[in-house]
């Protein structure tokens, strides 16, 4: 059975060019980037080059990029590194949400029914001891884009650091750290056709931050641990693709996404796009099907060869309704009837049309079954 992948917000395949860039760094160019000898120097050269590419993707300087073991680590560095009271939102990725819940002083700002954060609500939450505001750039489940510039201004007016989790923004919209006004910005390689276990935190020059890991003096003493040179090289190559081609790719996906949404809304009664009235990235669509449990819909689609996702299903099968969908005011049932489609490089118009047919078929089969699922 041919399988089609519509879950690019979960992860993406390593692209051939990224794979090629990484391969020699696991075999021939294997040195420790911190070593003085030539093996080390070769590795250091690759690491520096990768750092310049990743920095260029963000419109930043190379020395503002700290490589991490993924987006979660970058988020944790930001949340735990500032000290004091932290303001964040109810729709953050668990990497921010769960980290923030460990803090003694934290305020969670609510979002509206479209999933948008009101900058004035952020301003109202600022206290004298507030050290950090963290608001994600693009929501992973809805694709909704937050008004970062306005929030950045509010943060800086109050002398507070501003962090944004930009993991889902990279490659989907142009990102310039300076223009956004962020002090800290988390990114991840595997969402942009790079390797898993590789991320970075942009730290604007002059920003004071405590490291998360202690050990050797790697990454300017901001992240101890032997540098992951193959991972960094893959990340760097992925960043070069983002710089050169992601704008055109995002435009292509946006057309496909709109086709998917329009045709599903036309052909399936009781279908609604969550967050549709907010500005969104062009590859993500979160659709709610009245009276349908997303669990059999997702499995039914998978068995037909279409990979999609529902909220935050975990390996144990615990399907607590998505905290993001709850935060935008959906009932438990509505949240449980929502499915996320996220498009990427592998998807074609023919695949989208086949997906639409499969959704129509599985939804109608599920609706014929009575009584409704709990």
């Amino acid at each position, binding site marked *: 059975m041919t399988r089609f992948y519509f879950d690019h917000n979960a992860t993406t395949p390593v692209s051939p060019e990224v794979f090629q860039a990484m391969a020699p760094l696991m075999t021939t160019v294997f040195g420790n980037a911190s070593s003085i000898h030539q093996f080390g120097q070769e590795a250091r050269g690759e690491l520096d080059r990768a750092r310049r590419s990743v920095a260029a993707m963000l419109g930043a300087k190379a020395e503002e990029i700290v490589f991490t073991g993924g987006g979660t680590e970058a988020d944790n560095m930001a949340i735990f590194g500032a000290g004091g009271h932290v303001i964040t939102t109810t729709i953050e990725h668990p990497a921010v949400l769960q980290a923030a819940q460990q803090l003694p002083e934290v305020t969670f700002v609510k979002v509206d029914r479209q999933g948008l954060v009101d900058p004035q609500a952020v301003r109202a939450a600022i206290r004298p001891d507030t050290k950090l505001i963290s608001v994600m750039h693009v929501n992973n489940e809805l694709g909704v884009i937050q008004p970062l510039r306005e929030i950045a201004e509010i943060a800086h007016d109050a002398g507070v650091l501003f962090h944004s989790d930009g993991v889902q923004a990279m490659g989907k919209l142009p990102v310039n750290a300076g223009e956004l006004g962020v002090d800290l910005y988390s990114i991840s390689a595997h969402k942009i056709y790079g390797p898993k276990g590789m991320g970075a935190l942009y730290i604007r020059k002059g920003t004071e931050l405590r490291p998360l890991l202690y050990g050797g003096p790697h990454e300017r003493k901001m992240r101890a641990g032997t540098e992951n040179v193959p991972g960094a090289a893959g990340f760097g190559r992925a960043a070069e693709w983002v710089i050169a081609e992601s704008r055109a790719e995002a435009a292509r996906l946006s057309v496909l996404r709109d086709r998917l949404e329009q045709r599903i809304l036309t052909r399936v009664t009781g279908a609604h796009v969550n967050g549709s009235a907010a500005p969104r990235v062009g590859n993500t669509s979160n659709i709610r099907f009245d009276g349908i*449990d997303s*669990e*059999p*819909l997702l*499995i*039914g689609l*998978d*068995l*037909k060869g279409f990979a999609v996702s529902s909220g935050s299903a975990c*390996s*144990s*099968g*615990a*399907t607590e309704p998505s905290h993001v969908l709850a935060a935008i005011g959906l009932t438990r049932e509505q949240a449980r009837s929502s499915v996320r489609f996220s498009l990427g490089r592998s998807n074609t118009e023919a695949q989208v049309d086949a997906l639409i047919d499969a959704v129509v078929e*599985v939804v109608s*089969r*599920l609706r014929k*079954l009575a009584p409704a*699922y*709990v």
Partner: protein
Amino acid sequence: MSEHTIAVAMSGGVDSSVVAGMLNRAGERVIGMTMQLWNQKRLPDIASDNATGRCCSLDDVYDARHVAQLLGIPYYVVNFEDRFEAQVVKPFIDEYLAGRTPIPCTLCNNFIKFDQFLEMAEGIGAREIATGHYARIDWNGDSRRWEMRRSVDRSKDQTYFLCGLKQDQLARTRFPLGAMEKTQVRELARELGIPTAAKPDSQEICFVPNGDYAGFIDSYFKEQGIAPTETQGEIVTADGKVVGEHAGVHHFTVGQRRGLGIAAAEPLYVIATEPASKRVVIGRNDDLLRASMHVREVNWISIAAPSAPLRAEVKIRNKHAAAAATLLPAAADGTRIEVRFDEPQRAVTPGQGAVFYSGDLVLGGGWIE
């Protein structure tokens, strides 16, 4: 997927693993599914890593997934926790508090495995389900009914818990182990390379650690904010004499001897629990004998509802050796039956199932009033 796709309910244990392996080897299109029914960490007072008789642990999911990977079949975990709590756990507790002794396995079969799971299977495109239950299902062309028979391995027979299955459920269900001995199943598990071949059989009620029902109910009450003192009361003899006190009616079941804390010349047993007065009635062994009982909500499986008296063997609990009896319809539609035993039976327990057999054939069953 094709019409012939079969969804196998995989618990991570040997039996359901073998079912998946057998069907897969036979060339069927098989999907493995594990039902997440209860969060074992939910009641911290009784949660323990070494508790026996548990279901739905991450270890079980790991085992089931491992088997599915070895077989190369699609595998999914589906979450039925809400429905399980509403349809199995809460009625289980309500029954205890009402002075009856419930069997959640039957409720789970009726409302979860052969209802929600069957529906889920159909929803994802599988027309049939298969489970590791020990029972047999056959089509009888003469009576135009699906018949249920006890398993070939009589020591493993689970028909007592399957007496609520309806014809349309039986039509879409396969029990491949019903024709096998347990030793054969374990051999086949080894032959199929199933890593859980030596895993012990699950025991007791899956969501109750160590078979401690009263402890489970107390913990659940605590979580729900219900004071446990509400069910405390007196222990009395049949003639109403107060002989002691108890911590709650749900600690007692008919026929129970231990835990009464009352010294007497001859062994004393629980004869009845009376939730209205919160009293536990005790008496002698002979006081437990009953010559007849009524059975409600009877589901007829292998035969249509009888309109005339019928001879049968009746099981009043899972480990009971079925006793000869006459069944007398007590409702026109056959859903209520009076059972008259040839010999009086000990500890006829309200809330337990009563299942009617004719030899291996499962005629039907219901709930003891």
